[in-house]
């Protein structure tokens, strides 16, 4: 019905948006630095440099270069990653899988904690639990993630030793095949409880750290929108029907309170992608963010462009999901182009 049409339309527009994105990515790459910087060395003669430029087509016109690059992207050739000393496409899937695993885990933390805490506080407006939650939420939004990550690391790894850093125990990781690259899923597929536990154990600390900021945003939104919904007439009407408070809250107020919260979840995901760079560096997580940070430091254009392209795609997909969810929750939304 309506929602399905909308999804199809959005999916059809997606390639257009992607082309736009790729244009921006390409332009940024040309403006922001020298594409062959990573291959240059001090001893090189100008002739050698010119040879390199010629080899990578840098003397062609920009549109020609763009078409060449785009053609490569479409063929699955994203160039050679200098920092990994391998073709980008050989490294990217693993990196992407690691980042996805971390961000999805963080999103699960943020969404469940955010909605749970927000509901808890919103239903107890202006009482002690509400005030405590608000302190938590405000500090969450105000704490710089690099500082918070280091504090978490010091407390839980250095002092308490409860959680490890890194993504896995090397021997356990090597003991199972990795068809998807997502460690937890691979562990389940391999039926290895040891590997699964190892994956979760490594995931907890970075995921909680990464999810904290988004948790705070979602909590705050959920709290205030629930408190607002609880003032609405339909809530009293639901009570007047004899529904127990549990149902009034869950079926009536919370459902409507989720509508503004869902939009914030989309924003929060952007937050997560940003934060993942820092968290991956601090927790030694072999994902896209860490890869990108290395690439930036060494001027590795191919890697940077791959990163920007794929995070943009991720963001687009998340936003599409959020829009669909929104339309599903709020029946008054007229879906349209």
């Amino acid at each position, binding site marked *: 019905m309506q929602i399905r049409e909308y999804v199809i339309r959005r999916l059809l527009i997606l390639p257009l948006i992607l082309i736009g994105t790729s244009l921006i990515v390409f332009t940024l790459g040309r403006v922001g630095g020298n594409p062959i910087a990573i291959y240059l060395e001090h001893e090189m003669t100008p002739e050698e440099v010119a040879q390199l430029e010629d080899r990578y087509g840098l003397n062609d016109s920009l549109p020609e270069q763009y078409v060449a690059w785009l053609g490569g992207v479409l063929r699955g050739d994203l160039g050679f990653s200098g920092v990994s000393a391998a073709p980008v496409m050989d490294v990217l899937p693993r990196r992407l899988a690691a980042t996805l695993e971390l961000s999805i885990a963080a999103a699960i933390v943020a969404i469940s904690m955010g909605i749970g805490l927000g509901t808890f506080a919103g239903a107890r407006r202006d009482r002690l639990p509400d005030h405590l939650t608000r302190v938590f939420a405000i500090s969450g939004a105000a704490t710089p993630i690099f500082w918070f990550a280091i504090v978490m690391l010091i407390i839980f790894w250095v002092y308490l030793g409860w959680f490890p850093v890194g993504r896995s125990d090397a021997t356990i990781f090597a003991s199972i095949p990795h068809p998807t690259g997502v460690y937890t899923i691979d562990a389940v597929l391999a039926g290895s409880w040891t590997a699964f536990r190892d994956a979760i154990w490594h995931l907890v600390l970075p995921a909680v750290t990464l999810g904290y900021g988004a948790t705070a945003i979602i909590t705050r939104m959920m709290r205030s929108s629930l408190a607002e919904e609880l003032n609405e*007439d*339909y809530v*009293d009407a639901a009570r*007047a029907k004899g*529904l127990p408070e549990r149902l009034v809250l869950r079926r009536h107020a919370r*459902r409507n309170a989720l509508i503004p919260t869902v939009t914030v979840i989309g924003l929060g995901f952007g937050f997560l992608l940003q934060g993942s760079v820092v968290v991956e560096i601090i927790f030694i997580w072999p994902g896209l963010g860490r890869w990108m940070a290395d690439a930036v430091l060494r001027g590795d254009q191919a890697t940077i462009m791959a990163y920007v392209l794929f995070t943009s795609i991720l963001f687009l997909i998340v936003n599409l999901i959020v829009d669909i969810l929104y339309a599903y929750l709020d029946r008054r939304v007229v879906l349209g182009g």
Partner: protein
Amino acid sequence: MTAAAPATAGEKTAALVASVEDLRVHFELKAGVLHAVDGVSFDIADGETLGLVGETGCGKSVTARSFLRLIPTPPGRYAGGRIRFWPKEARQSGGEPVDLLQVPTSDMLDIRGNRIAMIFQDPGKALNPALPIREQVAEVFYQHRTEDLLEAWNGRAPRPIRRAASQRAGKLERLAFKFPPLRSQSKRLKRRVDELVGDALAETQIHNPRKIMASYPHELSGGMKQRVMIAQALACNPDLLIADEPTTALDVTIQARILELIRELQHAHQTSVLYISHDLSLVRRICDRIAVMYAGRIAEIGTTQQVFHDPRHPYTQGLLAAVPSFAHRRGELAAIEGTVPELIDPDPSCRFHTRCAFATDICGRVDPVLDGRVAGRPVACHGYASPEELGVAAAELPHLDRSPA
């Protein structure tokens, strides 16, 4: 025009459905304690329609919500009085009433929507925008008619179905309903609910109940939404229907039809109605008796006839004198000179004394009581009080010109 009044004031012959006695509901605000309802008393007799009229902010809705304990506490507080309620069984067997302000929450949940139902002012806001109509009406049946829903099982319904029929099924159970063996049974339950919801809607003269059931509130007109609210309210044959300005938010043409509908259904269901409004002409059309409210108190109570033809309280007299004016927006109470008094931490006094042409010194010092002895029916005015009881000379009391102007 008025139907035979079941109970004339003073002689409580007919059985009562509800009796409000000295109800006080206060709100604790930063500025002080707001006496929104401050000593309200009235009775509702079996089968009658009692109108509760008064200017905006005088405490009509707070009074109405108190029946179902829907006042948010805090900041609200039930500061005193009681609301006694006689469910059908109690009325028939002469049993004891319950005090709605005291019954345990579980009993209250059982009364809400089942024994006492409520219709709200703005049907556009009283329906949940996120749920289809079917789900919203169905809730009443799930909540109060579980046995009815399970009739077809002859008491042998499996536990998950029984839990579903009283809205207790958990997430896992609801998942199980999508697969055999519970699938067909859960469908049967749904069909039974559909039937009841459809019947309830059809009763309010909705011609295509199935289509309406699948709609969301925003897809319906205001009148249609109010019909849904009425269907939902009367679904369980309540003893008392509280209608809080049910037509104020509607189109004039639709108002009349909704009013007619409420009247018809009230007769069919033998439901007593507490009809709240600030529209005197409207109350006059459908109420047997009228209670006039002013600033948190009842000014006077009488049959529609009495209140309109022989108003006793200066406030009512003022209202009626101003009623047929075209200068006022339709449905609004006519303005009387002066402003409504501050209800925060009020001193003992007649709340109307600042606007009353007859007020004397005592009106600003002593609370009048709602007394029926002199006036022949309950009127809260010192003009009808006995000087001996107040301990003052007769000359100090306001002297009302009692002949209708």
